[in-house]
């Protein structure tokens, strides 16, 4: 049996009435020990902020595990209290979003090799007829990032660098990840 997949349509300009949750940005509860905050702006091809986007994240826990029946390795060894794995934040007038989470662990890659710690990211917005998908990697994982099969698949190191968040100087636990939909330093997006 093979059924045709339902096509995607844009979220349109009014997603803010339906999709944001008050606790959306909190992959872990606010104040969780070791939590990190990832902030950034979503901008368009003119460099203007995208104030009507939704940024969603999905990631492994700090142990590199997913609380999900399709992870062939089984259940998390030490589930982090309140860890949801999923974050969601609508952008504000200046195009900014924020996600409060725990840094994920590295993952084994099918067939061998290791994926560096990362978050999968969806961006939905007016003007996007389908979501776009990217990844956030971590600036303190240079060695793991260099061995990551997904970053390597991008080819151009300058383009791959668009997926590595920046540490915020003098602000431990704060990372910056801007999402440029189009134009100079356009973020790498994936065909999933």
């Amino acid at each position, binding site marked *: *049996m093979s*059924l*045709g*997949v*339902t*096509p995607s*349509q*844009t979220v349109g*300009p*009014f997603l803010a*009435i*339906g*999709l944001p*949750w008050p606790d959306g940005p909190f992959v872990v509860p606010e104040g969780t020990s070791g939590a990190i905050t990832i902030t950034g702006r979503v901008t*368009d*091809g*003119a460099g203007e902020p*995208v104030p009507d986007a939704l940024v969603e994240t*999905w990631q*492994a826990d700090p142990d*590199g595990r*997913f609380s999900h029946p399709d*992870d*062939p390795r089984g259940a998390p060894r030490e589930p982090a209290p309140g860890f949801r794995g*999923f974050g969601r934040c609508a952008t504000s007038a200046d195009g900014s979003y924020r996600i409060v989470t725990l840094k994920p*662990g*590295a*993952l*084994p*890659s*099918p*067939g*061998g*090799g*290791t*994926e560096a710690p990362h978050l*999968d990211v*969806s961006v*939905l917005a*007016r*003007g*996007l*007829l389908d*979501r776009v998908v990217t990844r956030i990697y971590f600036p303190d*994982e240079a*060695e*793991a990032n260099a*061995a990551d099969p*997904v970053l390597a*698949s*991008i080819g151009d190191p300058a*383009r791959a660098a668009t997926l590595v968040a920046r540490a915020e100087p003098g602000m431990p636990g704060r990372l910056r990840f801007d999402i440029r*939909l*189009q134009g100079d330093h*356009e973020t*790498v*997006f*994936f*065909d*999933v």
Partner: protein
Amino acid sequence: MTVHPPPADPGLTVRPYERPSGVHPPLDFAGYRSTALRHPRQPLVLLPHRLTEITGPLLGAGRVTPADADLTAQHADEPLGQRITVSGRVLDSGGRAVPDTLIEVWQANSAGRYRHAVDNHPAPLDPNFTGVGRCVTDSEGRYRFVTIKPGAYPWGNHPNAWRPAHIHFSLFGRAFIQRLVTQMYFEGDPLFYQDPIFNSVPDPAARERMISRFDLGLTEPEVSLGFTWDIVLRGRDATVFEQPEDRR
């Protein structure tokens, strides 16, 4: 910082999901002006499905109450408009039900106006209608919303542009790669031909899959009309067979 990679696991196998072609709209679609500055110009990079992609948030329990599925009962009085029931099943392309998955909907009121600050269409707001609902599919993938039929509304995409009546649907499925946000339309809408968003889907047969059908069996006598609409998410790739060691 010391890196502690997990032990190499050459035995780890991940069964990927299918990649349907020609189903979803292109990101660059001239007819819909807002795509112009928002679509990536660089080619998308193929991402083979790994652990992060074949897992995903299993949301629902604790986020939804039964009342969230009735958009006509969220205020002191009833909203104006044609009462409707919208119901169907969430399936994957292999025909399997997708149970226990969160569905979120939002829509305009019967006059074609959203309860949103930037909707400046000069049609009345309805104090008894927010236009937001949620539910979780049952064990057979079934969902059901009670609402009012949304109105069509004008928008600034091109002169005299009107959106066909639609309800926005957001679904998670069980894997990151199954995430879907779409719009449900109504059978026989005369506005389809001039709507670039509906027509951004290249395959006419795929467009039809966004259209709900009137269903007398879903009507409630003396109360409301019924529309049925099944939603199909990507399934596992049938061309990749499970290895015996995967069945554990």
